[in-house]
């Protein structure tokens, strides 16, 4: 069993409180993780300015090179982890064993992280719209057309309260080190692996140790990170997002309610988009805010739902190391059963039908095993947008196919992180462009799970960390 300390500005700290991370299928104890109490975090944050100061001593271009080196190390190297070392294969095995995500999906997430790290210069150029990054470090400069400009960091460090069940979120914070802002992690209890591995990769690549802290812990630790950091990201459910919605210090990421909208001009050819729709729901086991939870069209909805059910109803749990495994396990006892019960309750509403009620193997949606549970893909047809289930998201491949006239569609879809609007109808496309409740807009046949890493996600991280302000200089 690996003994993993907290990291206080790069210095290991072994706590008297330790949490055991266990294999969800076998119960094997994989790691013992030191838990940080809130007071430690609050005290350490008094020294947060040192993290940024250490990073500002290194030019942004150098930091980008270090990040690129870190990408390679993250993918291939044996890196220190607590009192042991961990190679990439073990990383995948451990991450899968504690999060329930199949190993091939963990590898895909690794690849996604590497992709972003490796192209950090392009990502930052895109997010800053070509700003000379040294201006961020220096605080002021002259842009190409001769206009003075100034950016002020709003925080010395970015706090991150990370989830346990979704290793796909890490790409969001990866640009932060080259922006010369430190990182303060509160990892999810079941997923300490990525923050520790990435941190060690950064260290080995030359990033100063004092730029990063990792504080595993309970809810108190998360609250302390949010309270003590001037800027933080938190990942959670809708109540978490609602709680922090008005807090300018916190960017809350929760359910995406991502959707595909089929315009009247294409819906008669819906079969053409069936693969796209299935992929949007099924990839990464539906365990992502970018996974599609709603398909909206004015007609053929029952046929679409039937076809999707035919494609997905037979998907069943497989061993996590099976490359064909499409479903992630629910490792928290009772969680899958509770979700399935909520769906059953929602299915009693008028105009709602479970198109996956009968599966080819005769099995049920809920698969209960000795140490974990699974939920099999579920496709629901809604004859109108009225039922609650028409706009619901769950952490497994679940989708509602909703019948709604095109002229009402944008008005009824509600908050939508990814909106893939498949239509050539210019009025619909223009309305979608103006719809402020759609965050990332895809016009055309783009799966919701296909991200362009050169685009901002739920707000631009540059705008969150830096403020563009007025600046003038004159002779004394």
């Amino acid at each position: 069993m690996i003994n993993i300390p907290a990291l206080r500005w790069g210095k290991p700290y072994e706590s008297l409180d330790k949490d055991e991370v266990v294999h969800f299928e076998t119960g094997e104890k994989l790691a013992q993780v030191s838990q940080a109490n809130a007071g430690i975090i609050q005290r350490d944050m008094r020294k947060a300015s040192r993290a940024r100061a250490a990073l500002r001593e290194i030019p942004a271009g150098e930091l980008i090179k270090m990040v690129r080196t870190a990408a390679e190390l993250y993918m291939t190297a044996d890196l220190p982890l607590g009192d042991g070392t961990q190679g990439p294969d073990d990383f995948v095995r451990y991450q899968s064993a504690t999060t329930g995500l199949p190993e091939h999906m963990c590898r895909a997430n690794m690849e996604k992280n590497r992709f972003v790290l490796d192209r950090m210069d392009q990502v930052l150029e895109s997010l800053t719209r070509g700003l000379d990054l040294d201006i961020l470090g220096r605080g002021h400069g002259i842009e190409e057309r001769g206009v003075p400009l100034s950016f002020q960091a709003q925080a010395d460090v970015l706090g991150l309260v990370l989830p346990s069940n979704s290793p796909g979120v890490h790409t969001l914070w990866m640009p932060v080190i080259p922006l010369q802002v430190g990182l303060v992690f509160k990892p999810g209890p079941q997923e300490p692996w990525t923050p520790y591995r990435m941190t060690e990769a950064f260290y080995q690549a030359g990033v100063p140790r004092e730029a990063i802290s990792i504080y595993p812990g309970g809810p108190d630790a998360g609250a302390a990170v949010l309270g003590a950091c001037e800027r933080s990201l938190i990942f959670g459910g809708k109540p978490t997002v609602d709680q922090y919605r008005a807090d300018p210090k916190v960017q809350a990421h929760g359910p995406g309610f991502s959707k595909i909208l089929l315009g009247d001009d294409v819906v008669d050819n819906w079969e053409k988009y069936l693969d796209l729709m299935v992929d949007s729901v099924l990839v990464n086991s539906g365990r992502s805010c970018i996974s599609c939870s709603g398909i909206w069209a004015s007609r053929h909805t029952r046929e679409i739902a039937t076809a999707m059910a035919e494609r997905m109803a037979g998907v069943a749990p497989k061993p996590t190391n099976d490359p064909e495994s499409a479903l992630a396990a629910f490792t928290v006892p009772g969680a899958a059963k509770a979700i399935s019960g909520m769906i059953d309750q929602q299915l009693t509403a008028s105009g709602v039908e479970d198109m996956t009620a009968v599966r080819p193997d005769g099995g049920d949606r809920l698969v209960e095993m000795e140490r974990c549970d699974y939920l099999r893909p579920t496709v629901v047809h809604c004859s109108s947008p009225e039922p609650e289930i028409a706009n619901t998201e769950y952490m497994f491949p679940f989708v509602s196919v909703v019948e709604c006239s095109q002229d009402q569609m944008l008005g009824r879809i509600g908050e939508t992180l990814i909106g893939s609007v498949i239509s050539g109808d210019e009025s619909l496309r223009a309305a979608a462009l103006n719809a402020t409740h759609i965050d990332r807009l895809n016009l055309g046949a783009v799966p919701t799970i296909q991200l362009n890493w050169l685009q901002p996600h739920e707000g631009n991280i540059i705008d969150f960390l830096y403020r563009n302000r007025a600046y003038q200089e004159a002779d004394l």
Partner: protein
Amino acid sequence: MTIDDRIAAEKAKLDEHVREIVRWHFDPETGTPFWLDFASKLDFDPRTDINTFDDLNRFPSFQDEWLRGGPVRRWVPKAFADKPIYVFETGGTTGLPKSRIAIDDFRTDYEMFSETLPDDKFPLGSNWLMLGPSGPRRLRLAVEHMCQHRGGICFCIDLDPRWVIQLMKKGWNEHLEAYKKHVIDQAVKILKGGHEIKAMFATPKLLESLCEALEDQGTSLAECGVLGIFSGGTEFTPQWTRFATEELLEGIYMTPTYGNTLMGLAASRPVTAEEDYKITYYAPQPRAVLQIVDPDEPSQVVGYGETGRVKLTTLTKELFVPGFLERDEGEREEPYEAYPWDGVSGVRPFQKFADSTTVGVY
């Protein structure tokens, strides 16, 4: 006398105390109206059939719901009907608070606890700061009494924990922070006001905030003259103690306590770095008894070192509470020289309730 002899002697003393207290509360002349009424529904006579501590298992578990609502006088023993009565409350953020009556128990309990405090760290005659909840709470009066008992004058602050819980439930984080600052500002003013405060009570969260606030002002608790702190609550863990000792207190002596409105204060064995800051509490027997029991069979204590739910029995002439199952769990600990009866370590919220319990709000 060997430790085994002392354990046996204490057990005999406890049994005798049980007989005295049960007879007092169930005697029609002196007894408590609630228990006299309760006895009429029992299939045994407490005055003749309860002769040992173990016999108390014949009572059903005490339900704290019985303490909600009035009339409060049903808890006043007839023998004390003419005495001045205090009422202390616990809970009450939503719904009716639980209330218990008191006459002198809080004074007696805290005078007993006072005997456990080292005089060089809590100097006799020195003034105290009570940095904890105010309002209808036992703690505020009890700490003030203990300070007076030791010859000092106690400074207090205003702190309404029910409002703090409301703020947390509403997610009004900004207001929560502002209220915390309001509380700490009061404490800083007192500490810097020339009142020669050398000792204090503080909850772990407030102690952290106070130290941070003083540091922001370029000073510290030690520089303000504080020598000793007593604190309490399930947040008072070994790790927190280590953190406070190593990083906050600059050598100030701190001792943990465990208690609530229904009991006196359980004192701790000396807490040392050598024992990884392990905290073991011992109840003030025979006035109160802590047992660690099987959650599914509360009449059965677990083995030494094993985990169980904390069960509290209060045995004073003012209050009889047989077998109240606390919302905490911990490990059963062996008796030792200073306390020749069972102790409890690792106290934390009972796992079954942990998700729904709000701890350490102040």
